[in-house]
């Protein structure tokens, strides 16, 4: 019997997305001096993707991505005439927000696991 439903899977994908987004943003910060570099980001969609309307998960194997996140070009606008389009401060803001998101998602995961454990043990 499966203990873990759709929401748990979504939370798991959320942590994955947070990690990939951090990677992308770190790349932006690393390339403040690279001529012609264009900053990129992962955009989270507000709409739920179709896959999320699935009521139950397939038995095993790959689960379709449930969080709609698209890689987008997100240049910060020219910071210098011939320089790359990366605003370090704005990127740092995004990194901080992303870290907060990941922290919250991990907390939500922990809370679910804690509750499941309490149910199994009959205590707490």
């Amino acid at each position, binding site marked *: 019997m499966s203990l873990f439903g759709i929401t748990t899977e979504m939370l798991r994908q959320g942590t994955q997305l947070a990690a990939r987004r951090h*990677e992308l943003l770190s790349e932006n910060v*690393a390339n403040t001096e690279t001529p012609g570099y264009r900053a990129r980001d992962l955009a989270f969609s507000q709409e739920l993707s179709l896959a999320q309307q699935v009521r139950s998960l397939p038995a095993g194997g790959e689960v379709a991505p449930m969080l709609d996140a698209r890689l987008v070009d997100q240049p910060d606008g020219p910071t210098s005439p011939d320089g790359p389009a990366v605003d370090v401060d704005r990127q740092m803001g995004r990194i901080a927000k992303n870290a907060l998101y990941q922290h919250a998602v991990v907390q939500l995961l922990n809370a679910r696991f804690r509750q499941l454990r309490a149910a199994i043990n009959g205590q707490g």
Partner: protein
Amino acid sequence: MPQEDALSISASALAVQRTRINVIAENIANAQTSRTAAGGPYRRRVVNVGAETSFATIVGAQMEPRGVKVSSIAEVGGTRRSYLPGHPDADADGYLDLPDINPVSEMTDLMAATRAYEASVTAIQAAKAMANRALEIGR
């Protein structure tokens, strides 16, 4: 794991910014150098940064985070003629070639490089914090 790749990217950025800081410091220190060991006045150097071509390319996905590296350190600066008759290196007419280095502009570059360095340090700290939290899921 993605956190590891992010750490490599940030680490490569640190190395590049450190090199930039060193080169800028050299430019500032040598702003008045009329005679280098190789002869002739010092010339302003810049660090050319390029993307690291790497094994970290993720197959099948659109993202290829790579990191950065120094592609070259080039002498790009010119010289300016100054009239300094008392100077030991001055020619018969009292003129001297000095490096065309603007200390103010070098300082601005230095500040930018320092900020970029600090930003990568912060990115590394964020990556570590995220990895540690992920390790504690279910603990």
